């Protein structure tokens, strides 16, 4: 188990800034940035570094007439009707409190009414953000427990609202926990408030308890 401070995070931020980070992890970085000023600053700094490199880049001359062609496109743009506005963010009561990047991802996925039940008091939806990884939003009711499980690969868990506790500690809004194949845990939602958590994982999630056997037999979802 690693807390954020132990990780080589500049690598997440640099890949994010450059645009090469996996879409699921990019959503995680954006959501965490909306929750925490230190993360937002780290992202801003990484993008400033990239912006400075753009400025320092040796220019490659555009073809003759490139500017005229751009200005002609602008004229055409202004002559056409304004682009229609897309629908607003998901309006689902308690989901209004989620940070904008996450609401946007939920809206894009278009499945916010199809929560599946993972265990009593534990619901989840898959977020389709074009990730190569598995991206899910969990809704954990107070005192509800996710059955003990291990991980096929890396699992990143970002607490968005509320909190949960497992044997490695308590996690609140903005906290990111990273677990590897060696870790098993049984997270329990903290009392008092529903916990939303964004989970991004690059390997199969395996349940290890008794309920896990049932799930393996039934297949996931």
């Amino acid at each position: 188990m690693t807390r954020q401070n132990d990780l080589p995070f500049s690598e997440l931020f640099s890949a994010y800034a450059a645009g090469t980070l996996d879409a699921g992890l990019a959503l995680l970085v954006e959501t965490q940035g909306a929750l925490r000023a230190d993360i937002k600053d780290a992202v801003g700094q990484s993008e400033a570094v990239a912006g400075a490199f753009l400025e320092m880049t040796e220019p490659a001359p555009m073809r003759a007439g490139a500017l005229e062609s751009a200005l002609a496109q602008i004229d055409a743009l202004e002559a056409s009707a304004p682009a229609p506005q897309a629908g607003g963010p998901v309006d689902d009561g308690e989901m209004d409190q989620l940070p904008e990047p996450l609401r946007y991802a939920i809206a894009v996925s278009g499945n916010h009414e199809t929560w599946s039940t993972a265990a009593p008091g534990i619901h989840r939806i898959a977020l389709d953000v074009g990730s190569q990884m598995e991206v899910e939003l969990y809704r954990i009711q107070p005192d509800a427990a996710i059955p003990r499980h291990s991980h096929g690969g890396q699992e990143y868990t970002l607490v968005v609202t509320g909190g949960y506790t497992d044997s490695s500690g308590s996690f609140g809004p903005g906290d990111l926990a990273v677990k590897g194949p060696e870790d098993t845990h049984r997270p329990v939602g903290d009392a008092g408030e529903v916990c939303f958590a964004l989970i991004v994982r690059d390997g199969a999630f395996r349940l290890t308890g008794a309920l896990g056997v049932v799930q393996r037999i039934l297949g996931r979802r």
Partner: protein
Amino acid sequence: MARIAADQSREAFAELFAFFAPRLKAYMLRLGAGEQEAEELTQDVMMTVWRKAGMYDRKQASVSTWIFRVARNRRIDVQRRTTKPPLEPDEPMLRPAEAEQPDSAVSRMQMEEQVRAQLATLPEEQLALLQAAFYDGLSHSEIARSHGLPLGTVKSRIRLALARLRGGLDDPE
């Protein structure tokens, strides 16, 4: 940028185009685009800059950083080439800061100035690695392979460089 947003100033756009279009094209070429594609992607990016100029907030980022983001998002679109049409044209990262976002600990303007000033003083070996990581978007292990360096050396040089950019702030790593 303000003149583009407020007055639809074509003169201001032409100035911006003269500086940034050739650099954006160089960026696209660097990413592996062909000559024709680089030219077209650059035009796309400059068109987005025109349309979204009103979203630019000078307190949040320098013009270079903002335009880089537009180009970066274009790059992501091209890479994904998803079958799904884009649902919404407003990239979240281009929006001005919203009330729900936390306050930054430092002024963005100061931070950007600091980054620029410190980048100019970095030794070439650190600068090259920062460029590979933040501009080309390579992972540390990819950089180690492409530069023929041990992974630990890559990590420590980038860490040193970032510590410099933060101007003596504690390196959180």
